[in-house]
């Protein structure tokens, strides 16, 4: 249905190319902000890095500011934003971290898991807000900046930082290290690695079991990486694919009216539906990532063999 145009010489609308350009990161050769190369790593800011920075700065400022304000007031009743924040924090601590990690370590691991949740949910949600597109429209009709301006360089469509495998891989790497730290803190370094395999089995079993368990250890963060990134990317691809009907039909019938008609009758209602679904997915995926992190950390602490 949504195959790119056959033959690369065609100059018409190519939905495949457009969709990939929208969901993938912008090229490092044309960064949004140029930064120096340190130790062979190019630190220039691309679309997804910009989104990461925006999310990180916003979260840091908003949460630190509201928590400080709450701590300074005389009565211990939160109001406004802090009220919602407290409800979320309490929900995560009491129904995600506590049942999995246990009473002893709940305060050790709640901060990490809360950070994960707020970061992922905000990054996911920011991908749904078409801020760059709005900026582009403003630029096109009001500002008229030139082709090389920052506005035109950031304009590669909306970007979900968590739709990039590198971002989710970094998050999953933190989970992976947290699992090892949690096990080491609870049982000591050597005992943690002994806990990886069940004890008290005949020695030939261990020849098979140890590699399987070690692979299982690597698979868990990998599953976290793929699930979050694929889900975030998938929703955007679906929305863009449905929207590209407008251009496909305009081209097919050589008439803008056909495209707009299909857009109004088919694409728009479908996109509204998918977007509503996306709002749920934004929450569910952030929630699943935090839940699984808590479960994995809990498995390293409360060993059942």
């Amino acid at each position, binding site marked *: 249905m949504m195959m790119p145009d056959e033959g690369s010489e065609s100059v018409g609308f190519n939905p495949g190319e457009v969709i990939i350009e929208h969901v993938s990161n912008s090229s490092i050769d044309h960064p949004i902000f140029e930064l120096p190369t340190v130790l062979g790593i190019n630190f220039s800011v691309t679309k997804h890095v910009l989104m990461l920075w925006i999310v990180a700065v916003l979260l840091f400022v908003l949460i630190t500011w509201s928590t400080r304000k709450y701590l300074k007031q005389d009565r211990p009743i939160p109001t406004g934003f802090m009220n919602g924040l407290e409800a979320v924090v309490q929900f995560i601590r009491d129904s995600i971290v506590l049942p999995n990690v246990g009473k002893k370590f709940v305060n050790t691991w709640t901060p990490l898991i809360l950070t994960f949740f707020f970061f992922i949910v905000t990054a996911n949600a920011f991908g749904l807000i078409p801020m760059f597109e709005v900026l582009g429209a403003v630029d096109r009709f009001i500002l008229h900046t030139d082709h090389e301006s920052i506005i035109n360089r950031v304009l590669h469509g909306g970007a979900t930082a968590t739709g990039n495998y590198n971002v989710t891989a970094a998050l999953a790497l933190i989970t992976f290290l947290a699992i090892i730290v949690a096990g080491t803190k609870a049982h000591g370094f050597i005992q943690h690695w002994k806990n990886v395999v069940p004890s008290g089995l005949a020695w030939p079993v261990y020849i098979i079991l140890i590699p399987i368990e070690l692979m*299982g250890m690597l*698979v*868990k963060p*990998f599953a976290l990486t793929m*699930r979050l990134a694929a889900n975030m990317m998938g929703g955007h691809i679906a929305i863009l694919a449905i929207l590209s009907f407008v251009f496909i039909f305009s081209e097919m019938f050589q008439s803008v009216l056909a495209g707009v008609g299909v857009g109004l009758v088919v694409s728009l209602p479908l996109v509204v539906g998918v977007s509503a679904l996306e709002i749920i997915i934004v929450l569910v995926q952030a929630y699943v990532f935090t839940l699984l992190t808590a*479960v994995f950390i809990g498995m390293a602490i409360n060993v059942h063999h």
Partner: protein
Amino acid sequence: MSGQRDHFLAKSLESLQENIRRSGPAATASYTLVGAVLLLGGIGYLLDQWLMTSPWFLLGGLLLGMVVGFYEIAKAVWKR
């Protein structure tokens, strides 16, 4: 009336928390199964590309992925 509604909400939230708590291991096992097949199959595919031995490493990786994935599921199922 409002007391009744509060009670209903509190009960719903409690039941949601309980379901979440119990769904943890199941979610872990299912994601691990898919992840294991994808990861080890992918490594096998890359090895095949590198060593020109298609399709043996891919097949081996997929099989190994199934073994690891099902082992994790078995662990989740027979825990209690």
